[in-house]
C-alpha cells in the first residue's frame, strides 16, 4: 500500500462513519429548548472517529456525512455548514497524534488535551468560518449569523465535551492498554 493512498480500512471507516453521522444527525439530536439549538450527538461521534482514524477520515466523514444528511432529509445541502463540519472533523483528527486510543490510553491528561483541541477546533469552525461563509454566500446580516454560529458552537462544544469525552473513554476501556502486562515474581 502506497503512502499517499488510503487503506481499505480507512475507506470503509469513512463510508460507515458518514452513514452513522447521517443517522445520528437525523435521529439523535435533542432540542435544548432554545430555538434552532440541538444537542448534536453526531459531532461526539465525529470526534471519536477522528481520534481513531486521523484528520483525513475526520474531515471526509464531516463532509460526506453532512452533505448526505442534508440532501436526503432536507432536500439540499447547506454548503457553508457542510464545509465547517469537514473542517471541524479534520481539526479533531489532529488530536489523534497526541492520543493513542488504540492502546487504551485515555487518562486525565489525554482528556484535557482532547477537550482543548475540540474547543479550539469548534471555535474556529462555528464562531468564524460558518458565519463568514454565510455572509459571503448568502449576504445574511452579520449579527444574525454570528449569534447563530456562537449558539451552535457553544452547544456543540458542550456536546463533544460531555458526550464525546464519555464516548471516547468508553471506547478506550474496551482496548487492552499497552504495557499492562506485568512479570509475575
Amino acid at each position: 500500500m502506497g503512502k499517499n493512498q488510503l487503506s481499505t480500512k480507512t475507506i470503509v471507516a469513512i463510508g460507515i462513519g458518514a452513514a452513522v453521522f447521517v443517522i445520528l444527525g437525523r435521529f439523535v439530536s435533542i432540542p435544548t429548548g432554545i430555538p434552532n439549538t440541538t444537542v448534536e450527538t453526531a459531532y461526539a461521534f465525529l470526534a471519536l472517529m477522528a481520534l481513531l482514524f486521523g484528520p483525513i477520515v475526520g474531515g471526509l466523514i464531516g463532509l460526506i456525512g453532512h452533505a448526505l444528511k442534508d440532501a436526503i432529509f432536507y432536500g439540499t445541502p447547506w454548503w457553508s455548514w457542510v464545509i465547517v463540519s469537514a473542517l471541524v472533523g479534520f481539526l479533531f483528527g489532529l488530536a489523534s497524534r497526541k492520543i493513542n486510543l488504540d492502546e487504551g490510553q485515555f487518562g486525565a491528561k489525554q482528556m484535557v488535551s482532547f477537550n482543548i483541541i475540540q474547543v479550539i477546533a469548534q471555535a474556529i469552525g462555528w464562531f468564524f468560518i460558518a458565519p463568514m461563509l454565510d455572509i459571503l454566500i448568502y449576504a445574511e446580516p452579520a449579527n444574525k449569523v454570528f449569534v447563530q454560529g456562537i449558539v451552535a458552537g457553544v452547544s456543540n462544544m458542550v456536546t463533544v465535551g460531555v458526550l464525546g469525552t464519555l464516548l471516547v473513554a468508553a471506547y478506550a476501556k474496551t482496548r487492552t492498554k499497552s504495557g499492562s502486562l506485568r512479570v509475575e515474581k
Partner: protein
Amino acid sequence: MAVNMLAFVDRSSPIHRLSGATKFLCFIMWSLAGMLTYDTRVLLFMLVASLIIFTVSKIKVKEVSFVLLFIFLFLLLNDIAIFIFSPLEGVKIYGTKHVLFHIAGQYDVTVEQLFYELNITLKYFSIIPAALLFIKTTNPSEFASSLNRIGVSYRVAFAVAIALRYIPDIQRDFQTIAHAQQARGIDMSRKETIFKRAKNALAIVLPLIFSSLERIETISNVMDLRGFGKHKKRTWYSARPFKKSDYIALITVVALFTVSMLVTFYDGSRFYNPFV
C-alpha cells in the same frame, strides 16, 4: 417508525437517461451560480428553468412534499430572524430607504428590506428543485462511479458508495437498539429533562457505534480478501458512457452559468439594484 427520506426512483424521462456524472456537474454548477449571484433576474430565470426541468423529469410533487414543507418553514423562520436581527440590512445594501410603515423602535418595514429578503428566499428556491432533481433521478451506485469519472479518487468515491449503501442498514440497527432500550425503560421522548435525555441517548448511541466499528472490520476484511485497491484504476458496473444528450446538457448548463455570471457581475456588484 416510518421516516420520510429522499431516494432514487427509477422512471423513464430524459433527465433519468442522462449519466450520473452529467447530472452531478450540472447540479454543482447550478448551486455555484445560485450561491454567487444575488441578481433577481438571474435567480428568477433559474427558478423558472429548474421548475420546467422538474416537470420534464416526471417526479411527483407528492414524493417531495415533506421536504418542501420543511424548507418553507425553515425559510419563513429564517426571513423573520433576519428582520429581527437586522431590519435595515436591505437599506444598507441598496443605499436608499423607502419606508412602508413603522412598527417600533428601529423596526421600519422598508421596500429595500422586503426586496432583499425576497432575494434570499429566491436564492434558496432556485437551488432546491435542482438538488431534488439530482437526488431523485440519480441511481446511488451510479453516483459513485460518476464521482470517480469527474476526477475524485475511486477510493473516496467508494467511501461515498459505502455510505449510501449502509444508511438504511444503520437506520435499522438504530431502530432495533432504540426499541430494545425503550423496552428497558430508557425514555428518549419529550417527557424527560434534557440532561436525562442526553444520558439516555448515550445508551442508544454507544451500542450503535460499537456495532458500526465492528462492521468496519468485517467489511474492510472482505474488501481486502477480494483484492480491493490492488490496481490504480477500477471499472464500475453501473457506469454509463456519455451520450449526445449528456454533451448537450453540459454545454447548456456551462453556457447558462457563464451568462448568469456575466449578467450578475458586469456592473461590478452581485446585487441587482432596482432603486437607483
